[in-house]
């Protein structure tokens, strides 16, 4: 569906030259939810704007379907944008228009007749769950409701691709989840390809099929979400993964337990997919003469399966602990000894 090949994007000239995107090549499949994660300034905002021609690459090509976005302009580009719509972090609704009128705006741009416009708007309001709020102004809506208007507006011209520019970053966690559910539903029901950028690993984990990690304009890691969670390669990816698996309390708990029981071995177990449902721990305790302290446990559900991590402290003699770890490996559980420093 979407092909990016050798994209470079630079701003400015001479010594002020800034490279925002550096030699990025990506393939995004039809119907996929593809996430791009990175900290601010990583180039992800520029990257997503290359997909609808709000930015043009300095070199390389952007292709969506059969259309080369980076080679068209004027009327052709404006028409292409109706099929590659966008939602925004700050919603970007027109305050002077009601919910209904905001959603009708892209239809007005596309030259749809008034009667058809009203019909489509009514459908969209139903789809995003805003029935009853048609005549409200954006100032009367909550953040989540505003983003629903944004989504309805983006879907008005039946796009093939939906671009989400930090669409949940201004929302609280609960609202974020309900918006992500709505996006997943839309993806499944309408078969829409979704490309989203975010700095929250939570968003990637919850709805994306594949993820690209960006740092300083480059894609440093790319793969299925579950794979990336399971074995992050780049240091920055590891940091993003720990955003979810190891909240701050874990570090405190670890420090505390090391003080209390300095002799034990701390290990981190990683479970993926079906293993998360196996009673591996019970087996371990029954088979080996070790004391097991559970320091922290966590299961995250990603779009393609569950991913769990468990931090244990094993107390016992060294040989038994080694055997126990070997047992875990036999059960296909990844382990990592957390050093005592």
């Amino acid at each position, binding site marked *: 569906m979407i092909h990016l090949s050798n994209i470079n994007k630079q701003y400015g000239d001479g010594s002020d030259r800034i490279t925002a995107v550096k030699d990025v090549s990506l393939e995004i499949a039809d119907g996929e939810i593809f996430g791009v994660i990175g900290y601010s300034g990583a180039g992800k905002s520029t990257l997503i704007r290359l997909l*609808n021609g*709000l930015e043009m690459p300095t070199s390389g090509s952007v292709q969506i379907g059969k259309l080369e976005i980076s080679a068209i302009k004027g009327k052709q*580009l*404006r*028409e*292409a*944008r*109706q099929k590659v*719509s*966008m939602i*925004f972090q*700050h919603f*970007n*609704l*027109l*305050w*002077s*228009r009601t919910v209904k009128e905001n959603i009708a*705006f*892209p239809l*007005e*741009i*596309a030259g749809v007749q008034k009667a058809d416009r009203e019909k489509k708007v009514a459908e969209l309001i139903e789809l995003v769950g805003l029935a009853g709020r048609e005549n409200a*102004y*954006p*100032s009367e809506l909550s953040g989540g409701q505003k983003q629903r208007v944004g989504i309805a*507006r983006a879907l008005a*011209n039946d796009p093939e691709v939906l*671009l989400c520019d930090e669409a949940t970053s201004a929302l609280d966690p609960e609202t974020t989840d309900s918006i992500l559910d709505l996006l997943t539903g839309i993806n499944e029901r309408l078969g829409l390809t979704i490309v989203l950028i975010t700095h929250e690993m939570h968003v990637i984990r919850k709805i994306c099929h594949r993820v690209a990690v960006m740092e300083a304009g480059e894609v440093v890691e790319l793969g299925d979400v579950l794979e990336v969670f399971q074995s992050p390669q780049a240091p920055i990816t590891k940091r993003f993964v720990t955003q979810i698996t190891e909240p701050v309390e874990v570090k405190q708990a670890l420090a505390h337990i090391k003080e209390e029981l300095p002799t034990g071995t701390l290990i981190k177990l990683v479970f993926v997919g079906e293993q998360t449902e196996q009673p591996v721990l019970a087996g371990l305790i029954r088979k080996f003469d070790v004391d097991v302290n559970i320091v922290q446990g966590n299961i995250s559900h990603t779009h393609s399966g569950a991913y769990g991590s468990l931090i244990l402290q094993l107390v016992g003699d060294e040989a038994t602990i080694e055997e126990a770890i070997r047992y875990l490996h036999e059960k296909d559980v990844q382990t990592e000894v957390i050093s005592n420093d």
Partner: protein
Amino acid sequence: MIETLFPNVDWPKMWEATVETIYMTALSTFFTLVIGLVLGVLLFLSSPGQLWANKFANVVTGAFVNIFRSIPFIILIILLIPFTKFLLGTIRGPDAAMPALIIGAAPFYGRMVLIALQEIDKGVIEAAKSMGAKTRTIIFKVLLPESMPALISGITVTSIALVGYTAMAGIIGAGGLGTLAFLDGFQRNRGDVTLAATIIILIIVFIIQFIGDFAARKMDKR
């Protein structure tokens, strides 16, 4: 009562002058609105990073606005006498005041339009672009509606300034309350005529302000 307070006021004449002042203010406000909007939108769209980013157009429009905004109105009237004479064949009467009023006020309003447009959230313009909107659509369906309260406050202030300008133009013979206050009031030393003209001007200003405030509030859904 009124007879004793304003012994020298010729009321039918005063009414005629009031109508002339209202005529000059209304007509010049209308043209100022149209020309000011064009100037402001041009200034905005030609500024760096905008849809028609063009340094030359921006500098030329900016210079025009700044020069005419800076010339004191009373001097502008005098400078424009040959132009007015060429255009209308006379320099007396309400219509003859029109070129000076419009050229004096439109750049002033154009600058206010620019400021109003700069207040619009850039994201909203980006959103419209991302939907495939043409520049014309962006101007008429995004820029103007989204800055409407500021545009209305701006034209209110400009229109009130125009009431003042008509009075100044009156001194050199444009007619209206300015002429009356100056010729019949000041020069013939009839304070009550000047006072009556002043009160009527104040009433006109208050009415404009009231309508402007009401409309701006009504339009603002933020």
